[in-house]
């Protein structure tokens, strides 16, 4: 089974995004960038499908292709995935941040070219927070989808996916090929070992451009401004329960 894992280079999870003073966007100059954490989980799960970790049989997946759409530096993101255990990468260069619909259209072409049995990807990128590409890719391909996965079991030509839904868990069986998007509790991604980082340097990354795929990626939405959310002011300190309860009853009126 061949697995395609799309990954995105985004602001590092631990960095607080700062809005530019001219309200044109978020300041990413000299900010640490990393692989989108949900994508890291997708790479890890794909590698486990190859290795036979956890409940997976060894060799459930036989090839992992990682694809990223982004600037030249997104090669580093692909290298990270290769060091974790992916086999080869494709970088589709784009200087602008494509909207989810455009990303899904480009990925649709990549899927047609690569013919994977499974697309495993993060449920959302932590920059745009759209939570849309996986679902849109599945729709364009006419494939089933299983989003927000916390467990994946591949058996023959189908996959059983346990999904994080409001109020609990839902398990669906989807026929392959399918798109599965990952939630946080699917696994804990590994750190690549030094030998694997060295090995990853020799793995192939095919260089492409968005234009190679012949799809319309023009933005559909116009960003008018990006602003900071209203700040909450710190209130008062209390030092005992009676005072707190009195304040909540009489001052705030919420008890």
């Amino acid at each position, binding site marked *: 089974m061949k697995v395609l894992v799309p990954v995105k280079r985004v602001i590092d999870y631990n960095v607080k995004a700062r809005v530019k003073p001219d309200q044109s966007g978020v300041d990413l100059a000299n900010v640490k960038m990393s692989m989108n954490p949900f994508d890291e989980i997708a790479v890890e799960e794909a590698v486990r499908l190859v290795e036979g970790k956890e409940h997976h049989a060894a060799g459930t997946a036989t090839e992992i292709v990682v694809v990223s759409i982004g600037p030249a530096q997104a090669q580093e993101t692909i290298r990270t995935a290769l060091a974790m255990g992916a086999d080869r990468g494709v970088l589709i260069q784009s200087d602008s941040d494509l909207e989810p619909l455009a990303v899904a259209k480009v990925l649709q072409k990549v899927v047609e070219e690569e013919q994977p049995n499974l697309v495993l990807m993060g449920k959302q990128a932590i920059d745009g927070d759209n939570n*849309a590409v996986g679902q849109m890719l599945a729709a364009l391909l006419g494939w089933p989808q299983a989003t927000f996965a916390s467990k994946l079991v591949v058996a023959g030509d189908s996959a059983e996916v346990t999904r994080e839904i409001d109020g*609990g868990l839902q*398990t669906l069986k989807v026929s392959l090929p399918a798109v599965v998007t990952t939630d946080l509790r699917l696994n804990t991604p590994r750190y690549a070992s030094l030998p694997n980082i060295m090995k990853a340097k020799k793995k192939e990354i095919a260089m492409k451009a968005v234009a190679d795929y012949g799809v319309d990626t023009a933005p559909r939405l*116009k960003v008018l401004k990006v602003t900071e959310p209203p700040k909450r002011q710190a*209130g008062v*300190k*209390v030092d005992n329960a009676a005072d707190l309860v009195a304040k909540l009853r009489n001052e705030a009126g919420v008890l």
Partner: protein
Amino acid sequence: MAVLVIADHDNAHLRDTTHKTVTAARALSGDIDVLVLGQNCAAAAKEAAGIEGVRKVLTAESAGLDKMIAEAVEAVVLPLMDGYDAVLTPATSAGKNFAPRIAARLDTAPLTDVVEVVDASTFVRPIYAGNALETVQSNEAKKVITVRPTTFKAAGTGGSATVESIAGADAPKTTFVSEEMVKSDRPELGAAKIVVSGGRAMGSAEEFKAVIEPLADRLGAAVGASRAAVDAGYAPNDYQVGQTGKVVAPQLYIAIGISGAIQHLAGMKDSKVIVAINKDADAPIFQVADYGWVADYKTAVPELMKALG
């Protein structure tokens, strides 16, 4: 221009996220129809017909729609979209799952997690875990919108729209296997007026249960948790409040032993009143708390229980 609202319900009852989404829809159009998808959902459809300002309620039933399987929802909604300029649904786990799928088939850019409708083509949505708000303009002919319900007021009741049933659909490539819903007598986290949340300071699942739950029950509150507490296994995942969990905006949010990581604040900072109890005076949670109490929860919570009487 007519708009369609896809309802959030459990067949027997409509959730108020639906009423809130109707409010968001009003900013787009006065002609609002509500689509109730499920199985034996006549009761929920009747409630939808009672929402003020709703023109018509459509219902479709099938096993797949009962579980809101995205492909089944797509199959029902797509043909309807000839008659609507926009479809809105609450940004629940179900809405987030099916809405982009419909958008892709309509070749339109979805507007997700919208917190404000400025006008019929301008929307505000959080990005970067709520650290920034993006105002976007969409001139798409058909709009697909998921609405963050906590930021809209619920539409009133007293309407009397007609209910019309239409054909359901299923998802041939997806089968429902099982569901494991957390059973609780407490109010639902997303809808509760009061939320009591615990953090990593609890140290164990037993301690979390022993400290947080009695206080929540005393207040008739829902129980929440920080991601740190969930990751440590002290609380189940569906308790999680934050960017990666539930976004809540209750009247009163009580954070106990929660430091206030950015990702947690993103999920609760729109609460009307925030109380923080933490022994670390420098914890960031105090910067957003209306009432901060620097104290060890071990002594503070029992004292609070006593003061509540």
